[in-house]
């Protein structure tokens, strides 16, 4: 009796087209998300599997993804070839300096645009937009020549001056982010601070800044990450400074040189395979710090943009 009722209920459930639509949608969603995620992760995964392989594995047709001669040797060798320790120190140094400066300068500028109604504000903000859409290639040459004649090439000075004045590439985006964040704060906050006797600067330092730390963190992280992979300004302004991006850029020539020196050890035939392994490993070595940063600070990357960001 009970059983029959349950069965009938079950049958009614199954006959409901809405349920089926929902079910089909979730299946479709699963397939879509898995497919896209796989496509994104695939190059990383192939590199990861390759980085643990021995040369002979690459020529072995029975080896697909899991190395037969599993070896961490590639990491040690690649790290030695490209001088990973020094690269890491250099890159982290440059990225931290640039990131901190941009976080501070873009927050200040964003605050100025968001909370004050001075004359020409709209027109001046258009300049920020202009910075965003201006291809850096247009100003690259004069920048180089000016820094050269000022004797600033070959030091951090060009990066520091660009970052501190919020005109480095993508700074327009960060100013935009900061401005959107500060626009979302009600006007009453200013009024309250002003009644308590705080001026414009004190209001910023004491009231606004503590709350703005997450958005500053977001700016810092984006700037850090994009500086990490940047390979237009760095080789031009400070060519002797070896960063990870530069090392990756020059990997082919570095390897060719290395091959010539060690041709006795590495035979001609294995060159292609060996180079691919080293290349994959070097790319992974460049990405790992970013991945770690991303995993730790994921909420600053996505949620901050989502919440405070463009929509406000």
């Amino acid at each position, binding site marked *: 009796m009970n059983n029959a009722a349950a069965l009938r209920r079950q049958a009614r459930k199954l006959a409901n087209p809405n349920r089926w639509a929902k079910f089909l949608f979730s299946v479709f969603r699963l397939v*879509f*998300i898995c497919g*896209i*995620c796989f496509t*994104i*992760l*695939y*190059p990383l995964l*192939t590199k990861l599997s390759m980085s643990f392989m021995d040369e002979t594995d*690459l020529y072995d*047709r029975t080896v*697909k993804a899991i190395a037969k001669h599993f070896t961490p040797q590639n990491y040690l060798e690649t790290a030695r070839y490209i001088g990973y320790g020094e690269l890491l120190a250099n890159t982290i140094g440059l990225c931290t300096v640039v990131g901190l400066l941009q976080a501070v*300068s873009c927050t*200040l*500028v964003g605050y*100025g*645009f968001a909370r*004050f*109604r*001075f004359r020409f504000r709209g027109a*001046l903000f258009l300049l920020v937009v202009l*910075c965003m*859409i201006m*291809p850096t*290639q*247009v*100003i*690259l*040459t*004069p*920048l180089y*020549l*000016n820094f050269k004649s000022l004797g600033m090439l070959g030091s951090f000075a060009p990066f520091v001056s*660009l970052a*501190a*004045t*919020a*005109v480095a590439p993508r700074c327009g985006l960060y100013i935009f982010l900061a401005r959107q964040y500060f626009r979302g704060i009600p006007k009453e906050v200013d009024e309250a601070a002003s009644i308590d006797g705080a*001026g*414009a600067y004190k209001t*910023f330092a004491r009231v606004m800044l503590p709350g703005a730390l997450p958005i500053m963190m977001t700016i810092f992280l984006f700037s850090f*990450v994009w500086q990490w*992979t940047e*390979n237009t300004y760095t080789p031009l302004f400070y060519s002797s400074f070896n960063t990870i*991006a530069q090392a*990756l850029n020059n990997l082919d020539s570095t390897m060719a040189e290395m091959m010539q020196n060690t041709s006795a050890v590495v035979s001609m035939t294995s060159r292609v*395979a060996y*180079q*691919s392994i080293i*290349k994959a490993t070097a*790319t992974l070595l*460049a*990405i790992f710090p*970013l*991945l770690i940063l991303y995993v730790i600070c994921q909420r600053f*990357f*996505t949620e901050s*943009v*989502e919440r405070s960001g463009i*929509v406000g």
Partner: protein
Amino acid sequence: MAKEKTGRLEACRNRSGYVFITPFLVGFVFFMLIPIVQSFWFSFNDVHIVENGYELLARELENYRYVVAVDTDYRQRLVESFVMTFRDTLVVIPFSFFSALILSRRFHGRTLARAIFFLPVIVSTGVLANTDSGNAVMGMMMGRDPTTASGDPLGTLSASGLIEFLLAESMPAELISFVTAATDGIYDIIIKSGIQIIIFISALNSISPSLYEASNIEGATAWENFWKVTFPMCSPYILLNTVYTVIDSFTNTSNPLIARVRNELMGLTNFGSASAAAWLYFFAIFIVLGAVYALISRKVFYYE
């Protein structure tokens, strides 16, 4: 909106806004405005690098004439980069909107899915965007001809082999090549969509639930909800994302024209004609952006 009267105290306070934006103003003048003027000036000159600076040799419109009339490579790359931008925008915007629609709903593992969708923004920029190659051997291992595998610029997931295998018997060759081109481009499209997806998700989250409640009471179906509520409410962000995508595609280092200008400038040769090339390109971008903006902003719905 009534114009509010600003008192003297208020005006004084507002003036300190200039102090906050001073860094940007200084930077803009020294590292934007002056270089822009210089670069514009260079485009009418021949630039010679000398010991401590540079010398200019007036060429008038010669650089422009060279780029437009003599240099066939420039024209070809210009057309290529326009085609690329057009194609990218047409695919990236629907794709990212669709992804955002899916990712904005609640489901298990959503955080992980979002994290992975956003991953390319972190790891596929700058120099890393160009190092996905070098998988020739991997392709060889997977039973593919190494020569074609190395010709595949990204060396990433390539469905061509499979699709050719499946369709070769029954389909015309043009259709196959179209399908394989589209599937091979998927990786490209995905890595270009990271930021746009995030922007669309935030747009979707900002739509007030009361709008959906009201339309449900009126008896709207999910389909109608989408076209009458979701889509119009997101239209400002479609505009924003389109502009972003167009700029991104035009100024990306993978853009054929940017690659050329960049190589010339990095090689520190032909500053004059490279500047002329960059300026012509910039004007072209400006016109396209203006057209895109004018076209889309007429359809944009602002909810106030």
